[in-house]
């Protein structure tokens, strides 16, 4: 039998030293942003019943879930997302909570990616959910917090992109497509598969909705996009565009101009999940969005409480990787002092170390019996000085 005792499963990795420091620093920064806006933390189980992730308005396909069974043979999964467990919480312990409710989380999630895709199957995700508030006000609050989060990453280049899930259903509803065709069309629209999109829509001749769909998939960029869209959109879709433009202008007013963009070629993967404004955040050096979010007004009703909600999630590992690349891996500070003591002075060394720490320095022992080895150790750690404590010696050795 082949042993896998030296490997971690595909899609997982150990994080060490600076990698941990980078991840924790991102998590801490986000926590501060969330709590400063009055959001309260929830932690949900890593294990959930499969049913939580298999609802009418949103479901995860079996392929992406890590599954196991409990003692009664029921199917459980490793949490692939935190929003659905929070919707479950809304249907149970938080059923009678005063709305609006502002929640945040910071926990690992698990997704089984295709083999050799190079993506993480396990990663830290943090985010907020604003539940039960007025739609316009909540949208602006969550968007502005998401924008603040993006700015906090301090990336070389970043974009905050908004869209609306309402265009696609509106423009596709009157084309009389069968369910499978509609799913195909949605896929072409989202993936900007222009050849397939054009071919399918050409069937409808000069139908204005079809022409608008073909154009909308291609419309993304800055402010100019709205004027372009106005030329092709039917009257019925204009209110959605107006609302989106207002949001765009508001974000520019919040100091995001030049960073905020719009993509009108957005649609939810299924008709039922996103129900309004959606948004994504990109940073240079990472090939996928690091932040995704949007309005989901139907999900919580699947858990028995009909209340609107919006929120976003951040891939902390992705942001931490970018931070690490930029910093060149110097995130863990070196100790100010390393202390070495001979056999008779171990307790004295401990006392001295405590004294230094109480003064705000970082100090550590060289847990080695040999003095020269201790000096080498202190150098390796990048310490500024080595404190030697023996019965005859009590001195500081500066280190280069």
């Amino acid at each position: 039998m082949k042993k896998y005792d030296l490997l971690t499963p595909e899609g997982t990795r150990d994080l060490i030293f600076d990698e941990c420091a980078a991840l924790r620093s991102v998590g801490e920064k986000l926590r501060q942003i969330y709590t400063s806006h009055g959001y309260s933390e929830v932690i949900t189980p890593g294990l959930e019943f499969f049913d939580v992730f298999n609802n009418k308005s949103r479901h995860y396909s079996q392929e992406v879930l890590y599954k196991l069974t409990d003692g009664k043979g029921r199917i459980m999964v490793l949490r692939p997302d935190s929003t659905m467990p929070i919707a479950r919480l809304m249907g149970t312990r938080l059923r009678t909570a005063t709305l609006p409710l502002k929640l945040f989380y910071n926990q690992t999630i698990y997704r089984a990616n295709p083999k050799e895709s190079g993506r993480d199957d396990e990663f830290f995700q943090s985010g907020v959910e604003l539940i039960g508030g007025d739609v316009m006000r909540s949208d602006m609050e969550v968007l502005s917090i998401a924008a603040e989060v993006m700015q906090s990453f301090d990336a070389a280049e970043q974009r905050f992109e908004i869209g609306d899930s309402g265009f696609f259903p509106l423009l596709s509803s009157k084309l009389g497509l069968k369910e499978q065709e509609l799913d195909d069309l949605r896929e072409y629209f989202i993936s900007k598969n222009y050849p397939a999109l054009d071919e399918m829509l050409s069937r409808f001749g000069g139908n204005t909705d079809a022409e608008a769909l073909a154009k909308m998939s291609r419309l993304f960029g800055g402010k100019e996009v709205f004027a372009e869209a106005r030329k092709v959109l039917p009257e019925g879709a204009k209110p959605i565009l107006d609302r989106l433009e207002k949001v765009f202008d508001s974000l520019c007013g919040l100091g995001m101009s030049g960073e905020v963009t719009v993509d009108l070629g957005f649609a939810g993967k299924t008709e039922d999940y996103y129900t309004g404004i959606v948004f994504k955040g990109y940073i240079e050096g990472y090939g996928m969005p690091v932040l995704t979010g949007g309005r989901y007004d139907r999900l919580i009703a699947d858990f028995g409480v009909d209340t609107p909600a919006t929120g976003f999630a951040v891939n902390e590992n992705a942001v931490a990787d970018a931070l690490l690349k930029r910093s060149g891996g110097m995130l863990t500070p070196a100790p100010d002092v390393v202390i070495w003591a001979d056999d008779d002075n171990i307790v004295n060394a401990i006392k001295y170390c405590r004294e230094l720490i109480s003064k705000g320095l970082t100090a550590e022992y060289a847990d080695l019996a040999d003095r020269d080895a201790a000096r080498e150790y202190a150098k390796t750690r990048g310490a500024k000085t080595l404190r030697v404590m023996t019965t005859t010696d009590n001195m500081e050795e500066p280190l280069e």
Partner: protein
Amino acid sequence: MNGNKAIRIALTKGRLEKDTVGLFEKMGFDVTELKEKGRRLILNIPGENMEVVLAKAADVITYVELGACDIGVVGKDTILEHGGKYFEVADLGFGRCRFALATKKGLDFYGGVGVKTVATKYPKAPLLKIADGIVDIVETGTTLKENGLAVIEDVVPISARLIVNTVSMKLKKERIEQLTDLMLSQL
């Protein structure tokens, strides 16, 4: 947004690479390095601020999906086989072939109620009787003919596609749209 940002394109080694290099030449790019590449896998197009990465078909998809390359040229067959998240913005028209079901000539493939075995590499499987048919790429059909096999059904038409990383599309919009338009205009 900077109009001349460096861009990295992944090409599927082999026939699609040759066709794309031909297209670049028509577009007026200096392809000397691409033609005299030796064993190098990352090549420059002077004056275009563009890097070309040569890779296996499946790797082109991985590179573009993860953002190691901004855009890629890959066959529709690889896209269908691997899926993934990227934009599939253009059909380049070349690299055209059929993805088809073939069997031994004269075999009534759909006849009867027995279970049929389909292999995915020709031409040996049906001839060695370990499969009743094969589903694979058919370019000229010569290999099939010489081995007494015949196409009985086309599954899907295949050609080279231009795929784009979802973040690059947004961060390098102008540059990518310019390049795509230029490529399409010279097909």
